[in-house]
């Protein structure tokens, strides 16, 4: 039995765009900055309704991060928008010094993350961003799984205080979290199970839902937890689930190093050593292709999650 279904697909970036527009209506201190990707980031509605609060900075991401940090002085809540690659690696030192170390209330909103960016290829498919951002002291890192959750996460950031990184993407993707509550830092247990826990984030939550149905057909009971907040990690939810299932699979559209799996492994190694398998990109760059082709080639399909579960169960 499939516990989650969808009737509509939308891109997570559109969830950000709708959320940002809504925040603009709610709070006159919310401002938005964009580095020449207004359409791609779906920031047009905000720009149209609040032109005086929208700042086009051109292709100058380092300056954008500094501007955003400075705007917090005087009480503004800046949301920066560009691709994930240009939101992190390109401007890491600016984020580190002007935003994270200075503890500025800047919301770094990043689209086109991961392989599902597709045809543009590896230059744009950043797979290291979660790792880079979670290493910064005080940085909140959120990777929502669908259009609805990206909208909810954006809205939640409007009242969250402190630097934050919000990671989303380009492809149309099933919408399946409508009506589910979203709280920053609180894991969302989507399916109860007893044999194995799958922790997933971003687009991989849907892959895990498909995997769960395949595993259920084989009589394997999966607990699926959507860990949309990588940092601060909901350690209690992780340990509570593992206490019951005693083995773990993680799934993320990121390098195997530095991402969600890495965070879970840290918790388990310290508090409850547990057999674990990681579904992630195995220390390589991506390439051009369709999102589905790429997820399959790089081992991020539902069938890869199924295989990882079967492997970890044998190690239990």
């Amino acid at each position: 039995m499939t516990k989650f279904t969808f009737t509509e697909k939308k891109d997570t970036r559109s969830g950000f765009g709708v959320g940002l527009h809504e925040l603009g209506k709610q709070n006159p201190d919310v401002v938005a900055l964009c580095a020449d990707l207004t359409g791609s980031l779906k920031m047009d509605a905000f720009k149209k309704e609040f032109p005086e609060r929208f700042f086009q900075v051109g292709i100058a991401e380092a300056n954008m991060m500094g501007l955003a940090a400075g705007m917090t002085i005087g009480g503004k809540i800046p949301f920066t928008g560009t691709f994930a690659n240009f939101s992190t690696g390109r401007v890491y030192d600016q984020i580190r010094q002007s935003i994270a170390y200075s503890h500025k209330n800047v919301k770094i909103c990043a689209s086109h993350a991961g392989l599902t960016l597709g045809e543009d290829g590896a230059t744009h498919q950043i797979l290291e961003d979660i790792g880079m951002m979670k290493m910064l002291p005080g940085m909140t890192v959120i990777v929502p799984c669908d259009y609805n959750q990206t909208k909810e996460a954006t809205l939640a950031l409007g009242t969250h205080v402190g630097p934050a990184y919000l990671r989303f993407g380009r492809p149309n993707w099933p919408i399946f979290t409508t009506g589910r509550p979203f709280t920053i830092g609180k894991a969302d247990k989507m399916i109860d199970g007893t044999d194995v826990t799958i922790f997933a984030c971003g687009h991989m939550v849907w892959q895990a839902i498909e995997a769960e149905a395949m595993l259920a057909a084989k009589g394997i009971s999966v607990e699926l937890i959507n860990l949309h907040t990588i940092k601060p990690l909901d350690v209690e939810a992780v340990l509570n689930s593992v206490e019951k299932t005693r083995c773990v699979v993680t799934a993320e559209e990121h390098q195997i190093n530095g991402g969600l799996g890495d965070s879970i492994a840290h918790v388990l190694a310290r508090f409850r050593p547990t057999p674990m398998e990681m579904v992630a990109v195995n220390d390589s760059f991506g390439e051009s292709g369709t999102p589905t082709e790429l997820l399959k080639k790089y081992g991020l399909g539902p069938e890869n999650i199924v295989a990882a579960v079967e492997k970890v169960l044998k190690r239990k």
Partner: protein
Amino acid sequence: MSKQTDLLELKKIASQIRRDIVRMVHACQSGHPGGALGCTEFFVALYFKVLKHNPKFSMDGKGEDLFFLSNGHLSAVWYAALARSGYFDVKELATFRKLNTRLQGHPATHEHLPGVRIASGSLGQGLSAALGAAQSKKLNKDDSFIYVLMGDGELQEGQVWEAAMYAGFNKMDNIIATIDYNGQQIDGPVDKILSLMNLRAKWESFGWTVQEFNGNNLDEVIKALEHAKILAKQGKPVMNLMKTEMGFGVDYMMGSHKWHGVAPNDEELKKALDQLEETIGDY
């Protein structure tokens, strides 16, 4: 107080701040005395004359002029100016660069030192932050000014020119930037490392109004900074190319990049203090 006495009083403060700088750097045997000494007149002019500010510090600084230090290694002169203008007790200058201090080697905010609004040290970032604060002032209908100081070597960082382009294009008429134009950087003279060539023409072509003055003449610095406010009203950002001498006020440190990041020993400290006789009381 007549203008003349006023100037004499400010010169005494400048001498004291120079004493503070060499004593601070000597006490922790680290830091950057050269640039700090070279910019002392600028900080005295700013904090004791030009800036509309409240030492009862608030991060947002509503209704106040705000200052940003982009070349964070000049922290010693900034801390001394802040303490001497009432932001915190001058005794705290003794903790400079020592464990658990609020006076970090490069300025930081998480220790909550009054006067510091953003961390700096990694170069090239301050102008962007200052422009953000300037943009925030405009949104808040606050007509105060934003000041920022940068180093000349720092202008080799690409981000500075992203910010320069943004400010010029957006006619940021509430920003008054200054370059500590001492011609020196760590590895030698700027002209030998990576020349800035025609710096005035560079800023003018980016849409800024440029003025030049001698940064080690206190009277001239005050007049230039006051004039900058008038220039800004012409609707463009203002760039002060401020010629300074690294190490100014301590003869053996003057004019050389050697004292960029070196602390004086006991004997050198005495020699420096002997040259900086005027004092309002050491910390």
